[in-house]
């Protein structure tokens, strides 16, 4: 299938400070049958570095999984910078965080987040949500970097 071929190239950048969360997310995405490369960064600074230099330069389609509670900067700031950058603003951003505050959700969508998912504390629900996200990732189209 051309689609799946296309998808193999898409790299998932997971910005998540909690190692445990990152591991659980990866596990469940893999369980959904998604085998794209997952790059994990644990703080905002390295995330911005990866975004603006490393990955973008590789000209490889990208998808960002963003946690809002980071040690060095707020995920909202990363989202802001991403959407303000002409080269990066088409990258789909999926906010995956513990906060389910209505104002926070609204703010993220206002800033151009594509999907907002609250991490369920209950693990069954968590696993289900991530697996469904994985299924969703396997069908969604991601724009080419230079398109």
């Amino acid at each position, binding site marked *: 299938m051309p689609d799946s071929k296309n998808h193999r190239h898409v790299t998932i950048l997971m910005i998540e400070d909690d190692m445990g969360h990152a591991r659980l997310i990866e596990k469940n995405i893999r369980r959904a049958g998604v085998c794209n490369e997952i790059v994990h960064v644990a703080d905002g600074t390295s995330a911005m570095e990866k975004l603006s230099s490393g990955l973008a330069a590789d000209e490889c389609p990208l998808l960002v999984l963003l946690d809002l*509670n980071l040690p060095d900067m707020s995920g909202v700031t990363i989202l802001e910078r991403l959407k303000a950058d002409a080269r990066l603003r088409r990258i789909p951003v999926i906010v995956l965080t*513990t906060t389910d505050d209505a104002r926070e959700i609204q703010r993220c969508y206002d800033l151009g987040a594509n999907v907002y998912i609250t991490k369920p*504390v209950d*693990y069954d629900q968590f696993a289900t949500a991530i697996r469904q996200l994985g299924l969703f990732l396997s069908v969604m189209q991601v724009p080419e970097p230079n398109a």
Partner: protein
Amino acid sequence: MNMLGKTPISRRHIAEWWTLGLGLLLVILAGAMTVRMVRLNAEQNASVAHTLEVLAAGAALHIAVTEANSAQRGYLLTGHPVFRQRYERARADIWPNVDRLGRMTLDNSAQQARVQKMRQVLAARQAEWDTVGRMADTGDVKGGAGRQLVGLELTEDFRNILQQMTDDENALLAQRRASADASGDWVLIIGVGGLGMAAMLVGLSITTLRRRAAELETANAEVRRLMGGLEDRVAERTQDLAEANEEIQRFAYIVSHDLRSPLVNIMGFSAELEEVQGQAAQLVERLEREAPGLLADSEREALSAELPEALAFIRASTARMDRLIKAILSISRTGRRTLAAERVDLSALLGGLAVTQQAQLSETEAQLTVGPMPEIESDRFALEQIFANLIDNAVKYRRDSVPLTIDITAEDLGSKVRVSVADNGRGIAPADQERVFEPFRRAGVQDRQGEGIGLAHVRALARRLGGSISLESMSGEGSRFLVTLPKKLPQTWVAEE
């Protein structure tokens, strides 16, 4: 407080009243002097009139005597009866006038003596007139003319006496007038002086009173300023409290979020571990089947019993912790929500809640009645949460032996309204009646689902609305929750963004 010291003001106060009192006294004195002066004047006038009357009587007497003299002389010379008549009439005027003089000088012994002497002289003169009269009757003109000198002497005597009397009266009048003038001057001086002094004192009093009024005004202004400062301070404190409250709410919110994050890991990995434990159980089963005796008892025990037990406890505890965190988040979210005051018809609100809960109520054959309710100005959402929680609780903790009844009534307390939610459920023991409002505390038999957060939530909401909630209950007979709410949501309670 020094500037408002008591002693100096009261002392000055007395001084002010003293000058004012003295002024008043002087005014009264001046008034009395005026009265005295008027009276003195009247007395003087009376004495002048008296003197004039005395003088008039003297003059009349003098005229009568002179008239009698000349008339008799005319009669003697002419023998004409007209002169005789004239003489008779003049003579008749003499005695009444003498009597008048005598009556009017009763208070004066010197004048009385003169009147007495005058009577003698006039009696002698009269006798002389009689003698001459008889001569005239008989036509003895020569004899009559010869007696004229005697008559002249007597008349002269009378005149002298009268003159003395007149002089005396005039001197007396002058003397009286002089003394009256002198005392009148004094009265005038004292009166005018007194009035002047009084005017001065009153002026002084007005000045000091005005100064006092100015001082009072200054003191009032100071008090107002201090009070204004007080209001500012209260506003400041209220602001501080609101900020502190906000801080606590934010803190609770952040803490519960940060607690959730590790909880996701604990729950996630324990679930993963359960997966592993399932595989381990299968492995144990296979080993038992294929290589019995390979596993020691303790190893088998650990893998198939202890591991699942530990995992079950971890899962139960984390699930509970998750519920508690959710409850804290819910309370902290209530505190963070901005209240919006609007007119709320409590009857309609409670009626709406009754409809929402209809399924639950009819399922348990419960009876919910709502009495007459006022309209208040408050936050609709918070009110709904309060009463929905109370109705929920009543349904949840009903007695299975009797059909549930819930009575909601209202009582007007002036600026506040007290809504009573009474049920006939299990009730709450006295020892637990305060505890049930604390978070995570529950009372009675723990046979119902819940985290013990409902009433804590209700109390937090009632307080945010500027009200309170209390409880009256008898264990086994029912509970009555009393929600007191202000009719108008206080402005200070509306949280700032």
